[in-house]
């Protein structure tokens, strides 16, 4: 950030959230999670642990709140009181599952508060976390309304991957040490690899070419991952992706704190949308008989 750079590009940097923030996006990686299809099997969680070198902290530390699950399956149970005088004696429909990982908000609340700019927005529309730069003030986690950031409260290397388990660590990304914040990256190492490959072959990235570990693993294909930039600014990014089609179909627009929809068939919503964080993960509501 040299002085010349600031002076030349000032107007670009000072564009606020009301204008959609940073404009020159290369891609805007987003996803759709269909809760009708989610069975809560947690295969995605396991895949995430394997892909991203997440520390396995053990039962006690998990109970202490030191778990590092970038992707977690939240379980919500039926209210016993169904309203209109009816009371549910049993949990008829079982739990509702909500797979939660970093929402990669376009107006992320974690970004402005980091004192050292260790978390910032990339031209890929990702909310990046620079482990080397992080000093561990943990402000980002406190300002994340979804509580999707995890802190290395201890050094887990030796306890989590005792030899020879360290041989199975993913070489494409680091193992984080104590004192560093981390969170879901949408498997940025995979995105990087695909982008590099496309560049080498002098072509654009194709739809479905990037698959984060969780999406790849999901047995019911509840998750769809892709570039949703072409619904935001047509003609850019990966065009006509399946994910963008779903966003369009369910009439969820980026940059809006509230979606106005008439058709009850449109099940799309974003978690805590009203906070104006502009998340890029679209959930499709679960439809149930009451």
């Amino acid at each position: 950030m040299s002085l010349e750079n600031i002076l030349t590009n000032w107007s670009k940097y000072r564009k606020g959230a009301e204008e959609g923030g940073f404009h020159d996006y290369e891609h805007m990686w987003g996803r759709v999670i269909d809760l009708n299809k989610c069975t809560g099997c947690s295969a995605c969680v396991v895949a995430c642990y394997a892909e991203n070198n997440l520390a396995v902290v053990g039962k006690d530390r998990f109970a202490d709140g030191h778990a590092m699950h970038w992707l977690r399956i939240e379980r919500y149970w039926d209210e016993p009181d169904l309203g209109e005088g009816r009371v549910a004696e049993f949990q008829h429909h079982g739990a509702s599952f909500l797979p939660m990982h970093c929402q990669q908000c376009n107006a992320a609340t974690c970004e402005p508060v980091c004192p050292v700019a260790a978390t910032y927005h990339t031209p890929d529309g990702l909310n990046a976390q620079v482990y080397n730069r992080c000093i561990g003030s943990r402000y980002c986690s406190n300002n994340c309304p979804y509580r999707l950031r995890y802190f290395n409260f201890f050094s887990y290397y030796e306890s989590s991957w005792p030899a020879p388990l360290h041989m199975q660590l993913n070489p494409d990304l680091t193992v984080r040490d104590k004192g560093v914040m981390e969170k879901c990256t949408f498997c940025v190492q995979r995105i990087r690899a695909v982008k590099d490959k496309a560049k080498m072959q002098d072509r654009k990235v194709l739809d479905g070419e990037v698959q984060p570990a969780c999406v790849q693993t999901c047995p019911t294909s509840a998750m769809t991952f892709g570039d949703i930039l072409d619904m935001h600014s047509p003609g850019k990014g990966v065009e006509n992706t399946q994910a963008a089609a779903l966003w369009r179909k369910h009439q969820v627009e980026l940059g809006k704190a509230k979606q106005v929809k008439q058709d009850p068939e449109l099940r799309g919503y974003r978690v805590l949308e009203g906070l104006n964080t502009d998340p890029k993960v679209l959930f499709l509501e679960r439809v149930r008989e009451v």
Partner: protein
Amino acid sequence: MSDQHKDINEDIRWAKINEDVLRSMENPRMGYWVSVVVCLALLSLAVIAEVYQYNTGMGVANLNWPQMWGLYIATFIFWIGMSHSGTLLSAILHITHADWRKPIYRFAEAMTTFTLMTAGLFPIIHLGRLWNMYWVLPYYSDRGIWPNFRSPLVWDAFAIGTYLTSSALFLYIGSIPDLAICRDNARGWRKKLYTALSLGWRGDDRQWRHFRKAYLIMACFLIPLAVSVHSIVSSDFAMSIMPGWHVTTFPPYFVAGALYSGCAGIITLFVLLRYYFRFEDYMTLPILDKTCKLTFAIAMVWTYLNLVEFSSVWYGHDMVAKELLIDKFTGTYSPYFWAMLFLGSVVPFTMAFEKIRRSISAMFVISILLNIGMWLDRWMIVGPTLSASYEPFAFSVSWPSWVQWFIVIGSFGWFGLLFLVFVKVIPSVSMYEVKEMIFHRRHIAHKDIASVMHRRAGDAKPSGEAGLEGVKS
């Protein structure tokens, strides 16, 4: 003593003031060494805890997800708050010409500096990788990496750094005439020390004129600084999106709370200094009485701002914030929350009674209770929001481990140690300002004494030495 109504007796002689104050800086007695040992013991607890935490990781403090901040940040706010009293007494009351502040402002100003030195440690201690703490400062780097100027934590670093520098300067500038008195009365290495520190102060006309100007400018500079520092600390919370933190009234609320706990801290130290150094002639009951009235007024402002916060949350109908507020009153943290309200808003009503305001022992206990209340207040800002905010999956309560408690307790030892060094190095009562105060009061109340003792060059000579003899007896 309790029937004393004057802030200070006008018949104290200059030599006695020097003697009394300089005596407090002589070789320490047993009580002093005991205090030093106690403070060192407390500090060593903190050092042990910090070394352990540094080597093992922040988890040993029982910080966890989602309780990422704990007592460290709460105590940080508490100490920053304590620092505001000094500026109130030394700067705000200086420009409003409240001369009763003069005997007690010096130690209050020292308290400002030392509480800031204590507070500044906490953000460093709470960092996950504290060896990289200097990254929050905008230093020139070959890689062209700067801190994130949008982050309130960076503002904190600037605000606290500026405030600490200015208040230390203010403390030093204000004590130059006194350091010169020390120089004139010291021998050996102390003489050398004070000769250097007093910067060649001779007390001539020109020096006093410049001194006054510098002091006034510093006072005017420090007031907005003090207000902005705690406003900026409050923006650590107010700038966030979290329920219970995202509160518009936080800056004034924090400043009021800061002045409140600072005044209570002054009363505590007032009582201790008066007792240990026999400063009964200077730290008089009427001055205690006035300080208590000031504390009472600020306590009411704080209470009012609390009510404003509650009602704006209640009528604002932000369901998450409302639920959190109800949870504060009825949930896991409710005993502490109620204790805070009781200590912060009910206990100060004892200061409505003159008998209690003038009772040294009662005020000692009350001032400590008030500060416990204010510490709880800071914890009740940090804790409940982290335990219950937007995401129901992340609702959890956790309690600090011994590591956090040791470091919090140790910070009091650190502050005490700094203060103990201070009272032996810099006069804890401002000699020249007490003289000034007496001088002005003599001119108002005792024209006869004043005309004898404070003759200027052009004044007529008093008839004989009778007047002066009368003063002596």
